């Protein structure tokens, strides 16, 4: 039994004490980066103060402790997402983007040949588009897109046709622009029925709902530490042990080898094969602490709270501005997360974000690294508000009030 209370999470989060332009901070940019609780910051500080040494092969006491701390973070993450093969299936990367690059440049190069298709969607982040375009340049693969309908959801009406020749379906679990939650379990079933693998960009969902890779029956899952209350500079790639075992190395260097001779090298096995050089040790420790903190909150309660925040905000945005504020994303709460993109008639997103900043409100203007999606809806940019486990209904109060100022200022 957990006792999740968003106000408690807020008081655990030091940055929530900031005052911006004379106002207490109203942080509505968790989809970009979440705010770490004290437990994460302190775990990283304690690591540097007490245990820091390089990991692996160290014999002295702190080197052994550093290695234990690094590897126990790997275990914590394996448990958090229900990795069937345990920590041996967790690769640490720099961020979600690097995780996708690892899949494309290691698994993709080894397994895809000219004419093979990678199927992605129109609502992907650039991190799940550009690595495939880059692979296309060297491997002659085809990159195909599942369209997004006017209801801001994937149009799966032709999915069986789209699956022709597909070796990998790579899809986001939740759009970072629309908030749309995609039916991953259903898509995994479709992919496997067509003999393809499925990769899931869980960056937006991993801290906002429970992730169980076994239940989803997927083949790759990637996410970033800093979007789940952890530090920047660390991301995760999970894949099944049998897939990982056949993947060639990604970056070369120390740590990823079993042997190096004058005539060549033999790569290490397991996740370390993909972790060349000194890894982000403190960041792994911080991410481990973040995962334990999230587990302590209880994801089911977090989901319920964020749904209530989103539903309330959507209603108030629709009611409050006489049609001038349009939500770019599903309006109903079915399969929708706590990301709200706004298009305000006559006010550019940058101007909205600028006015809101004067009230201490942090929202993100721009294309959110999803330009194909923005083009799909004829937009150059939106202003995006997103919630986290520390968000409160009072944040929406401040957002609505500040938005009112922006709207009236530009007339």
């Amino acid at each position: 039994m957990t006792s999740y209370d968003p106000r408690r999470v807020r008081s655990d989060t030091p940055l929530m004490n900031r005052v911006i332009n004379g106002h207490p901070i109203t942080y509505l940019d968790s989809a970009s980066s979440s705010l770490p609780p004290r437990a994460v910051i302190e775990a990283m500080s304690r690591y540097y103060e007490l245990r820091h040494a390089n990991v692996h092969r160290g014999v002295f006491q702190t080197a052994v402790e550093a290695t234990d701390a690094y590897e126990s973070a790997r275990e914590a993450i394996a448990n958090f997402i229900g990795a069937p093969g345990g920590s041996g299936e967790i690769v640490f990367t720099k961020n979600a983007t690097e995780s996708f690059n690892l899949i494309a440049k290691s698994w993709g190069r080894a397994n895809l040949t000219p004419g093979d298709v990678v199927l992605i969607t129109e609502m992907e982040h650039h991190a799940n588009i550009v690595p495939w375009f880059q692979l296309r340049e060297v491997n002659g693969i085809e990159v195909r897109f599942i369209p997004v309908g006017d209801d801001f959801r994937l149009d799966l009406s032709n999915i069986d046709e789209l699956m022709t020749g597909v070796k990998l379906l790579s899809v986001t679990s939740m759009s970072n622009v629309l908030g749309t939650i995609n039916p991953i379990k259903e898509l995994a079933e479709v992919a496997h029925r067509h003999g393809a693998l499925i990769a899931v960009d869980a960056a937006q969902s991993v801290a906002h709902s429970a992730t169980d890779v076994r239940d989803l029956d997927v083949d790759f899952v990637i996410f970033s530490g800093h979007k789940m209350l952890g530090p920047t500079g660390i991301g995760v790639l999970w894949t099944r042990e049998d897939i990982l075992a056949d993947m060639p190395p990604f970056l070369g260097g120390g740590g990823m080898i079993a042997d190096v001779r004058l005539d060549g090298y033999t790569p290490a096995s397991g996740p370390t094969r993909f972790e060349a050089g000194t890894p982000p040790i403190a960041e792994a420790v911080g991410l481990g602490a973040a995962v334990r903190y999230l587990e302590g909150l209880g994801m089911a309660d977090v989901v319920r709270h964020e749904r209530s925040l989103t539903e309330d905000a959507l209603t108030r945005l629709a009611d409050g501005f006489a049609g001038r504020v349009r939500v770019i994303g599903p309006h109903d709460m079915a399969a929708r997360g706590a990301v709200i993109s706004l298009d305000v008639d006559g006010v550019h997103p940058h101007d909205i974000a600028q006015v809101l900043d004067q009230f201490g409100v942090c929202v993100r203007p721009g294309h959110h690294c999803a330009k194909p999606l923005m083009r799909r809806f004829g937009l150059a940019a939106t202003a995006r508000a997103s919630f986290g486990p520390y968000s409160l209904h009072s944040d929406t109060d401040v957002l609505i009030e500040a938005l009112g100022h922006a709207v009236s200022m530009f007339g």
Partner: protein
Amino acid sequence: MSNLEDLYREIILDHYRSPRNRGELASPPAIRVEGFNPLCGDELVVYLNVEDGTLSDIKITGHGCSISQSSSSLMSAAVKGKSLEQVREIIGTFKQLMTVHESTLAHDGEPAKVDLRAIGELAALQGVVKFPVRIKCATLAWNTLSQGLDQLD
């Protein structure tokens, strides 16, 4: 709020709502130059007609935030009908206006040594320097215009 009113002065909002010299010119003969701000997605196209060393006409299309749109409108009004020499002078003065002098900013937020009377309505944009991330918005049209003039050389 005083900072915000400094940024969004009435002249700026007016030029944003009713941009001057909006539209296209037949190209050729007009010089056509595109400007992008990849950070915000702002896009501009500037059309220039040059006759006998004078910028006889200028038109601008595109989309962007109030700062980029009003800056392009104010620019078009300031340079239209001026000799190329005067145009380059105005560009130089504007760029100087947009240069952040941290030492002066620390005191009163005013940039150093620009004769504000000489630049007329353009002075309304001086509040932008207090918001460094927005300077790129304000300079987009001007950099695009500079590129167009470079094509003449």
